[in-house]
């Protein structure tokens, strides 16, 4: 029998250190739902999602009860909607988002991702229509998340898409101005987007995926932080080993839950995502882990190095614990969703420039960052271009989820609610990037794309 110490260690992690399974995400292919008649297409979409995910929430709750570990979110990701809706004879893609939203509510999940388009090299008619529909779609739905891939290492950066997304983010903020631009919290712009990401807002069910899969995202910043308290003052390689060992234990939970959910739902197990995902709760912060390593405040000199160590050790520990690893797999640094990041940003230690440096060594990118409401669309586009360049050159996923909160200025707070948290409005550079962005065109694929 397992000994007492081990049993209480597990229970302590769950009760006191916020160990949980962050999400079980069911990926559903909607490729068979395309139809020239948009009404029929949306009906097929609703029917397929509700059929596949009918048991997702009750099964998740059963597992939660039996294992005694919280499964915080049950979610759905679908085929990038631009691919499905392209066949329909309509300019307006908002009804497709509404169908997703209705299906999500019927299934009882709290987010559905995949109002998405992949435009790293160019736009189809459907891609353009979908992107143009985003501001309205995110305003009239509650649970729909949208993501647009504008760049990849193989294709380079579609600067027309980058420019357009700057405008769309501004329009989305304006359309949800009554909620501080909340729509933007459900919109991600990617470089090298992954096809099996279980985390929102960037989840979609990639075209290379099976009909239906279960992907699981684990969590555990609190557990890692607590483990590091025991090695205070010891050399940094001891820190790396401790993170690795802890990540292994956390990921084993994810693997167990993923297998169990897959068996009970009769749906293949896809991947476990090893990401260290924070929440706004006390004791569930990635920033506090970096501070536990010896930094007075997250964002000061040494932060990038500490984050690189953390990100790498999480992967090394996690990869041994799961048979299939995928998704984003790294540490997340969403400012509004991390109590330590919020504090560091408010103190002025954590700036957008430092965050950009940090995104070079972790997943994913500039995430859940509020900027002044009068930030020009071209500046937002330029921020996206910078992140996409980091991803493109370094063969990694990068993303931008930024909220130009209407009417807000530096120092104000933007309340997103729930898991989305609270974002302090951060300063951006006042100097213009407009001429650069207005050129449009494509940044060619880098030399390291030519690997064959």
């Amino acid at each position, binding site marked *: 029998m*397992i000994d007492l110490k081990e*049993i209480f*260690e597990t229970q302590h992690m769950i009760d006191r250190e916020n160990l949980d399974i962050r999400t079980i995400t069911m990926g559903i292919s909607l490729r068979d739902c395309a139809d020239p008649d948009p009404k029929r297409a949306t009906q097929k979409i609703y029917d397929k999602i509700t059929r596949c995910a009918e048991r997702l929430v009750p099964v998740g709750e059963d597992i939660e009860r*039996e294992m005694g570990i919280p499964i915080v979110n049950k979610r759905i990701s679908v085929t990038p909607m631009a691919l499905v809706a392209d066949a329909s004879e309509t300019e307006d893609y908002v009804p497709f988002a509404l169908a997703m939203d209705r299906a999500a509510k019927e299934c009882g999940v709290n987010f559905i991702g995949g109002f998405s388009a992949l435009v790293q090299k160019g736009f189809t008619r459907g891609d353009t229509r979908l992107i143009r529909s985003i501001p309205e779609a995110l305003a009239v739905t509650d649970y729909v998340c949208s993501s647009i891939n504008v760049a990849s290492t193989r294709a380079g950066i579609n600067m027309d898409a980058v420019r357009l997304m700057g405008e769309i983010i501004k329009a989305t903020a304006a359309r949800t101005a009554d909620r501080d631009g909340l729509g933007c919290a459900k919109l991600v712009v990617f470089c090298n987007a992954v096809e099996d990401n279980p985390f929102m807002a960037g989840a979609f069910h990639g075209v290379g995926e099976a009909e239906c899969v279960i992907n699981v995202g684990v969590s555990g910043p609190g557990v890692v932080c607590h483990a590091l308290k025991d090695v205070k003052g010891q050399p940094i390689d001891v820190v790396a080993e401790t993170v690795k060992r802890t990540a292994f234990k956390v990921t084993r939970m994810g693997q167990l839950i993923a297998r169990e959910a897959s068996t009970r739902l009769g749906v293949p197990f896809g991947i476990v995502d090893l990401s260290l995902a924070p929440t706004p709760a006390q004791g569930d912060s990635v920033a506090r882990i970096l501070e536990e390593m010896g930094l007075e405040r997250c964002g000061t000199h040494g932060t990038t190095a500490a984050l690189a160590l953390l990100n790498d050790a999480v992967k090394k520990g996690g990869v041994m614990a799961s048979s299939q690893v995928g998704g984003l797999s790294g540490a997340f640094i969403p400012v509004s969703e991390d109590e330590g990041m919020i504090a560091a940003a408010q103190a002025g230690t954590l700036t957008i420039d430092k965050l950009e440096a940090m995104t070079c060594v972790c997943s994913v990118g500039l995430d859940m960052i509020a900027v002044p409401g009068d930030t020009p669309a071209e500046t937002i586009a330029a921020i996206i271009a910078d992140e996409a360049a980091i991803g493109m050159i370094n063969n990694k996923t990068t993303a931008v989820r930024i909220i130009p909160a209407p009417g807000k200025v530096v120092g104000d707070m933007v309340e997103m609610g729930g898991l989305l948290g609270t974002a302090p409005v951060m300063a951006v550079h006042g100097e213009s990037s407009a001429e650069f962005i207005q050129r449009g065109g494509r940044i060619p694929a880098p030399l390291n794309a030519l690997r064959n």
Partner: protein
Amino acid sequence: MHAIVTVIGQDRVGIIAGICVALAGINVNVLDISQTILGGMFTMVMLVDIKEASVPFGEISSVLDAEGERLGVTIRIQREDIFNAMHRI
């Protein structure tokens, strides 16, 4: 299927008896018991077999909650798999 029952609370007469009777009532077999006093608190871990239980898992948990309330202790039941997954390779 095995599960782990953990009991923590102030020591008093009849904790083990009460829990065993409650489990027997729903046909849950006790396989092993380990009990100690940790920091003045009564601490017990039981390995039980729930394969032949007469009620579903959720109800076993409710029965134990009720018994815990009566005895003034906290009782929790979790499948053994979660501990094996974390601590055994």
